[in-house]
C-alpha cells in the first residue's frame, strides 16, 4: 500500500461512537495482527495496474511448459484462466465436480455483463464504472482492485466477441447496451436472458481448444477435497474421482481456486445444487484467510418456496419491478383469499407507502427486508410452509390495463412463462408471488492485489475471492469480475510467482501429501461408518433454516449468538448421527454431500461470528442494532471501514481476526439514501 495515501472520507461518523467501543463478538474470536500490505502498487490509481503488469516478472516461453498449474473450478473465472494459461504454454490441470466444464453455475446468470465501453456516449468511463462499483459496494471494497476491474472490463467484450459470443446487436450490426441495476448509464452487454451461458460457452470452447492442444488436462467429475501445503507453499490438491472413488494426488507449482460462492450454506438459494465451499474451506483450514464471510446478497424477486420438498430457488429478473406493483393484504384474514377478490382499499402497497419516491424500485436489500417484515407480521401470501406464508404479490394488473396485454407479454413474456411453468399459475390473470432468496456472496477467500491468498502459491479468482464487490454487488458485475480475473488479471500476476519456479519436486511420500491423503480418507471413512439415523439433506436443510433465520436479511446480536449455539449443536449431532449409505468406491452422491455439508457447518459459524463482529449495516449486511429511526441501514465508517480477514485456529478454537483498513484516495465515502 502506498503510505502517502490519505483517507479522504469527509462523512461525519454517523454513530458518534468511539472507535472500538463495540465488541459484540468478544469471546468468539481472537484479535490478530492487522494486514498492512495488500501489495497494490502506489501512485495514481489509473496507473497502478500498468505498473504492476510491468513489474511482474516474465517467464520465458520455453520455461512455461516446465511449470504446472492446478485450476479448481471451470466457471467464468476458472475456464477463462485455464484457457489463457494454456495458450501461454503452461501445463494446466483443471478440475470440476460437474460432468462437463460447461455446466458451472456462471451459466445461470441472466442479466448481462458491464463494461466501460461508452458506446452510447452517455458519459460512461472507466472512472465512472469504478465509482459506481465502489459506491454500490457501500465503500467496503479495495479501491485498487475495483479500479483495475473497471479498466480491463473493455478488453473482456473484445475477447468475447472474437470468440463468437452472440451478444445482442442493433440493426446497424453493432453491439446493443442497456442500463441495469439502477445505474444511470447504459453499459450492460447482454445475450437475451442468458448472458452467463453464452459467456461460459465462449470460455468453455477456449478451454476445450487447449485440451485439444494438449496444454490443459481436464478432470471432470473430480472434487478437490484437500489442499497440499509444503514448506508454506501451496503445491497441490487431493481430489476424489467421483465415478471410481479413487483418491488422487495432484502436484503442481501453483494452485488456483475458482470454485464459486457458498450461498448454499443457506440450503435454499439460487445456486446450483452442487455449488459448495469445500475447495475454499479446505484452503482456509490450511491457512488462507476468509474475508467478510457474512456479506451475502439476497435478491428480492425469486419464486417463493412451495413446500418442504423445495430443493432450490429460482430467480426472476428484477426488471419485473419496473412495471409490477408489490402488495400484501392489509388484513391477515385476507391472506388465503383469491387476490383478485381483495378490493383496492384492503391492499397494502407497502413499498409505495414506506418509500414514496422510489416505490417498487428501492434497492435489492431494502425490497427484500420489507418483504420479510410483512410476512413476519403474518401478512404473507401463498402456501403455508412450516406455518408461515412467505410470499408477497407482484401485480401486473395495472400495467396490463395501462400498456395492454401484448406490450406486457413482449417485455416480460419469457419470465411469465418461466413463472407459469414452476408455479402452475398464470401471471397474466393472477398476481405473481415473489420472495427474496440468497443468490450471491461477496465474501470469500482473502486475496492481495495479485489475487494471491495468504498461502503463497494459492491464488483465488471470481466469486470465491472477496475482493471487488465490497458489501454489495451491482447487477451485471459478477460476470465482469469472473472474466476480468481469469482472462486479464491472474495470467499476469501468477507469472511473477511462477518466475521463481519450477519449485523443488515433491514425491507422493512427502509427509504433507501423506497427511492430506490420510485426512481425506479418514473423513470419508467416518461418514460411511457413522450409520446414524438422519440423511445429509435433513441436516443441510436444518442448517439452512438457522442461517436464513438468524444470519439472513436481518441480523442481531442475540440472534447471531443463538445461531452459533444451534450450529455447534447441530454439527455435533451430524458427526454422530448422519446416515450415509453405499461405498466410497463408486459414484456416491450422499457421500459427496456429506463432505460439503460438514464444511458448511464450519463456514456458517464463521459467517455468524463475522456478522456479530460487524455491528453496522452495510450493503447486504443489515444489523438490527445499526439502523436509522426509519429503519434504514446505517454504516459506521469510524469503526468498520475494514476488511475482516479470518484465520482458522482449529476446530472449536476461536478464529483470529485480521483487519485490513480500507483506504480511499480516489473516491469519497458517502451514506446511501433512498428517501
Amino acid at each position: 500500500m502506498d503510505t502517502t495515501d490519505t483517507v479522504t472520507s469527509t462523512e461525519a461518523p454517523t454513530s458518534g461512537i468511539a472507535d472500538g467501543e463495540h465488541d459484540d463478538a468478544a469471546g468468539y474470536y481472537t484479535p490478530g495482527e492487522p494486514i498492512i500490505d495488500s501489495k497494490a502498487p502506489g501512485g495514481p490509481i489509473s496507473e497502478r495496474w500498468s505498473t504492476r503488469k510491468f513489474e511482474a516478472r516474465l517467464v520465458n516461453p520455453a520455461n512455461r511448459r516446465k511449470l504446472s498449474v492446478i485450476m479448481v473450478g471451470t466457471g467464468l473465472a476458472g475456464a477463462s484462466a485455464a484457457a489463457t494459461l494454456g495458450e501461454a504454454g503452461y501445463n494446466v490441470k483443471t478440475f470440476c465436480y460437474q460432468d462437463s466444464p460447461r455446466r458451472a453455475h456462471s451459466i445461470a446468470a441472466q442479466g448481462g455483463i458491464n463494461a466501460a465501453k461508452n458506446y452510447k456516449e452517455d458519459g460512461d468511463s472507466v472512472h465512472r464504472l469504478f465509482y459506481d462499483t465502489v459506491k454500490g459496494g457501500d465503500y467496503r471494497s479495495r479501491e485498487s482492485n475495483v479500479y483495475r476491474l473497471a479498466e480491463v472490463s473493455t478488453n473482456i467484450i473484445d475477447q468475447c466477441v472474437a470468440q463468437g459470443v452472440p451478444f445482442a446487436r442493433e440493426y446497424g450490426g453493432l453491439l446493443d447496451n442497456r442500463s441495469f441495476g439502477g445505474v444511470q448509464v447504459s453499459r450492460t452487454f447482454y445475450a437475451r436472458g442468458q448472458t452467463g451461458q453464452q459467456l461460459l460457452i465462449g470460455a468453455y470452447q477456449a478451454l476445450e481448444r487447449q485440451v485439444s492442444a494438449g496444454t490443459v488436462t481436464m478432470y471432470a467429475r473430480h472434487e478437490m477435497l484437500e489442499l497440499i501445503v509444503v514448506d508454506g507453499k501451496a503445491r497441490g490438491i487431493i481430489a476424489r474421482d467421483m465415478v471410481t472413488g479413487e483418491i488422487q494426488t495432484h502436484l503442481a507449482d501453483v494452485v488456483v481456486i475458482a470454485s464459486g460462492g457458498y450461498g448454499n450454506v443457506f440450503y435454499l438459494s439460487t445456486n446450483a445444487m452442487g455449488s459448495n465451499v469445500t475447495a475454499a474451506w479446505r484452503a482456509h483450514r490450511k491457512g488462507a484467510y476468509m474475508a467478510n464471510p457474512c456479506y451475502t446478497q439476497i435478491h428480492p424477486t425469486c419464486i417463493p418456496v412451495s413446500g418442504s420438498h423445495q430443493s432450490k430457488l429460482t430467480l426472476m429478473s428484477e426488471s419485473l419491478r419496473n412495471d409490477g406493483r408489490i402488495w400484501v393484504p392489509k388484513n391477515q384474514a385476507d391472506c388465503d383469499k383469491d387476490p383478485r377478490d381483495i378490493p383496492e382499499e384492503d391492499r397494502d402497497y407497502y413499498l409505495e407507502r414506506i418509500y414514496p419516491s422510489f416505490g417498487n424500485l428501492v434497492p435489492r436489500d431494502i425490497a427484500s427486508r420489507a418483504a420479510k417484515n410483512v410476512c413476519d407480521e403474518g401478512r404473507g401470501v401463498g402456501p403455508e410452509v412450516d406455518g408461515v406464508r412467505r410470499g408477497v404479490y407482484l401485480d401486473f394488473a395495472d400495467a396490463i390495463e395501462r400498456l395492454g396485454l401484448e406490450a406486457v407479454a413482449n417485455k416480460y413474456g419469457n419470465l411469465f412463462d418461466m413463472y407459469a411453468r414452476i408455479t402452475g399459475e398464470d401471471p397474466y390473470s393472477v398476481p405473481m408471488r415473489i420472495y427474496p432468496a440468497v443468490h450471491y456472496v461477496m465474501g470469500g477467500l482473502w486475496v492481495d492485489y495479485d489475487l494471491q491468498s495468504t498461502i503463497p502459491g494459492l491464488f483465488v479468482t471470481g466469486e470465491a475471492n472477496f475482493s471487488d464487490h465490497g458489501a454489495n454487488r451491482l447487477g451485471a458485475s459478477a460476470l465482469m469480475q469472473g472474466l476480468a480475473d481469469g482472462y486479464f488479471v491472474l495470467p499476469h500476476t501468477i507469472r511473477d510467482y511462477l518466475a521463481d519456479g519450477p519449485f523443488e519436486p515433491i514425491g507422493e511420500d512427502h509427509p504433507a501429501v501423506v497427511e492430506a491423503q490420510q485426512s481425506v480418507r479418514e473423513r470419508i471413512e467416518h461418514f460411511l461408518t457413522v450409520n446414524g439415523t438422519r440423511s445429509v439433506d435433513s441436516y443441510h436443510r436444518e442448517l439452512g433454516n438457522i442461517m436464513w433465520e438468524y444470519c439472513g436479511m436481518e441480523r442481531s446480536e442475540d440472534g447471531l449468538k443463538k445461531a452459533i449455539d444451534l450450529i455447534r449443536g447441530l454439527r455435533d449431532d451430524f458427526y454422530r448421527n448422519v446416515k450415509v449409505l453405499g461405498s466410497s468406491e463408486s459414484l456416491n452422491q450422499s457421500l459427496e454431500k456429506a463432505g460439503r455439508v460438514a464444511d458448511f457447518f464450519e463456514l456458517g459459524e464463521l459467517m455468524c461470528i463475522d456478522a456479530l463482529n460487524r455491528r453496522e449495516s452495510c450493503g447486504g449486511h443489515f444489523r438490527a442494532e445499526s439502523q436509522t429511526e426509519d429503519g434504514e441501514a446505517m454504516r459506521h465508517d469510524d469503526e468498520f471501514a475494514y476488511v475482516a480477514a479470518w484465520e482458522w485456529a482449529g476446530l472449536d478454537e476461536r478464529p483470529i481476526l485480521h483487519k485490513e483498513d480500507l483506504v480511499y484516495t480516489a473516491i469519497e465515502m458517502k451514506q446511501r439514501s433512498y428517501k
Partner: protein
Amino acid sequence: MNLTLKIWRQPDRDTPGAMHTYEVADVSPDMSFLEMLDVLNEQLNDKGEEPIAFDSDCREGICGTCGLMINGDAHGPEVTTTCQLHMRSFKDGETITIEPWRSDAFPVIKDLVVDRGALDRIVQAGGYISVNTGSAPEAHSVPVPKEDADRAFNVATCIQCGACVAACPNGSASLFMGAKVTHLGLLPQGQPERDERVVNMVAQHDHEGFGGCTNIGACTAACPKEIPLDVISQLNKDLRTAIRHGH
C-alpha cells in the same frame, strides 16, 4: 398424488442393470420431477436402501446436467428440461417409467447417470473460434448483421444436455453439432476455420459411436431449447462445402 415408479438401477458401468419398482406417496403437484425423486431418495435412505443416483445441478433449465427418459420420452412429456418438469404434468395413481439417456456413446455410470464426455470431445475437435486471450480486435471493428446475430444466438441456446441423442432412433448427435456449426458459421469471426471445424467435428462424432442422421426429427421434438431441425441441413451443407474445398 400417489405414484408407482419403475426406475433403472445399475451399480456401475460394467454390471448389468434392471428396472426396480417403487411406490411414492403424497406427491405434491407443485414439486418438480427431481424433487419428487429427492423425496423418494429420502425414503430409501431411511429404509437403509442406497438412494438412486441421478444428475442435476442448476435446476433452472440452463446447465444441461439433468436428463431422464420419462415414459420413453427424453425430458418427459413437456418441452423443457427434466428439472423444470413438474408433477402437475402427471396423474394420481400413474405408473412412470424412468430410464437413463439411451445411447451407446453415453455409457451408464450408475443408475440414471450417464457419461456425456463424448460431446466435450466433439467440441475439442473444432467447436470453437481460435483466438488467444488479448489478441482480439476492438469489438466494434466487425459489425454483424442483427439477423445473423439473432439467429446465431437462437441456436447457441443449446445446453448440451444430450436429449437429442437420447431421442434419436439412430443415436445421432447431429442436432447438437448442427447447432454449434451454425452458431459459429453465422458469424464473421467463425469463417476462417469453418471448413476444418465441420470436418473435424463430424469425424469425432462418428468416432465416438453416434449414429448418422436420417431426418426423423425426434431430436428437435425433444430439445428443451427448441433448436430447429434445419441446423442439420446447415451442418450437411457446410460439410459438402468443405469436401468441395478439398478437405
